[in-house]
């Protein structure tokens, strides 16, 4: 059987050059990666140090505490506050070129803040962000250009930016960029790991009887009233 002939135009030279640069930097990243990953801190974040005095708000650029990300310095942009009180954040990328169409250049020249990874956005609780340092804030232009498309994107759709600010499309299953996405997805899982928050008991201090408190003898009506004994047969009005 002969396949239907599908013709393609010449590849976009800018995209090809872009991908070549990205591949080269990815190769450097892998060549310089440590043989063993750093050991994660065993100290709960709540005890790891004082909170940053600046209240968390949309537009913040926060440096994640090493208890959240021990593998290196990672910044996140705070997008917006969610209904439950958590914040939606998007990490800045490790490389200087956007890898895919869902990563965008920010216009900043600082290596750690050149690329914003919209595809990798996730929720973080206020406490975690409060203990991460406020490094800078996005200006109005950046908020409009970078944050608004992400905040208004639907749950299944991706935010869109001009092609000259994003990476090439990803289609081939053996494209090395899948390895990069895998690595960054692992970072996302580490950063929003719920075990870091510990167990929360919702019993107030006043509800627990302390050992030294006096207690009326068993069977005393006053004692039974406190507990609302379900065996009582006294009808209620």
């Amino acid at each position: 059987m002969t396949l239907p002939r599908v013709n393609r135009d010449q590849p976009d030279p800018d995209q090809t050059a872009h991908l070549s640069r990205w591949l080269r930097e990815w190769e450097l990243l892998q060549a310089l990666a440590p043989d063993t990953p750093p050991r994660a801190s065993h100290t709960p974040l709540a005890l790891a140090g004082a909170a940053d005095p600046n209240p968390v708000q949309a537009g913040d650029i926060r440096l994640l505490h090493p208890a959240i990300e021990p593998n290196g310095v990672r910044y996140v942009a705070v997008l917006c506050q969610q209904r439950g009180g958590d914040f939606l954040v998007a990490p800045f990328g490790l490389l200087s070129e956007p890898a895919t169409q869902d990563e965008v250049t920010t216009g900043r020249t600082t290596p750690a803040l050149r690329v914003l990874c919209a595809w990798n956005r996730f929720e973080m609780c206020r406490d975690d962000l409060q203990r991460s340092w406020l490094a800078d804030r996005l200006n109005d232009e950046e908020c409009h250009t970078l944050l608004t498309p992400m905040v208004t994107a639907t749950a299944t759709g991706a935010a869109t930016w001009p092609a000259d600010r994003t990476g090439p499309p990803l289609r081939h299953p053996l494209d090395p960029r899948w390895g990069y996405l895998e690595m960054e997805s692992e970072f996302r899982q580490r950063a929003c790991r719920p075990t870091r928050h510990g167990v929360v008991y919702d019993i107030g201090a006043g509800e627990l009887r302390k050992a030294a408190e006096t207690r009326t003898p068993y069977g005393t009506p006053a004692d039974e009233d406190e507990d609302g004994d379900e065996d009582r047969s006294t009808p209620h009005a």
Partner: protein
Amino acid sequence: MNTINISDVSLVTLSDPDAWHLLEVHMTLPDAIHGKAYKEWLFARTAGSPDAPFDVVQGGATLLMRSAVREHLRREHLPATHVSANQPPTQITTAPCCEEWLPGPLDTRDTVEHRELQSLAAQHADRLFAALPRRLKMTLAARACQLPLSTPDLLELAGCQCSTLHGAYREFAERVFDELRECYRGDDRDTVSDLAVEVFNDLTQRCGTWAENDNALQDILQSAGRQDGGGATV
């Protein structure tokens, strides 16, 4: 050294003061509210660590230095594959992988042919999906949801290590491409590659749908989605 166009290491080695200056320049955010917050990060690593504080800070500085070195090499040195324009061309070297990973846009006059190709891809995907082992379906479904293959719950369900899933994925992708190239040996190579990509993407979508009906896997995918807030698809 294999990644940059330098044969003598001493030519790129910096002195200690220069190296520390490189780190400062790389890590500091200019004109920022707190441009040197990375120093807080360095010393915060000592909290709760069983190692000596000096060792912890030194380890953290080493991590940061790797990033600074990478940026320095990217900016200052050419890649090892760089060829001078003055060198007599012995062979035209383009990156075949780049061309395969990033082909040009489809000719808009070939819409009908492209739909035929997609229909043919669906037939191949039907055949391959029927014979796909569960572990591979799980791998493709995880990829479709951008769930890392290193997710502990996923590995426990699959009953193997992360490297096994990665290896299985790669081996399967290569097998799909090789099979189709063999099947359509006389056809245009680029068109066969397009067909293989369509087949693989179709398979990935089918595995995503399959995962929705697998209770154990769906729990893992949904749990990861709740924690993550949902990563967008590329």
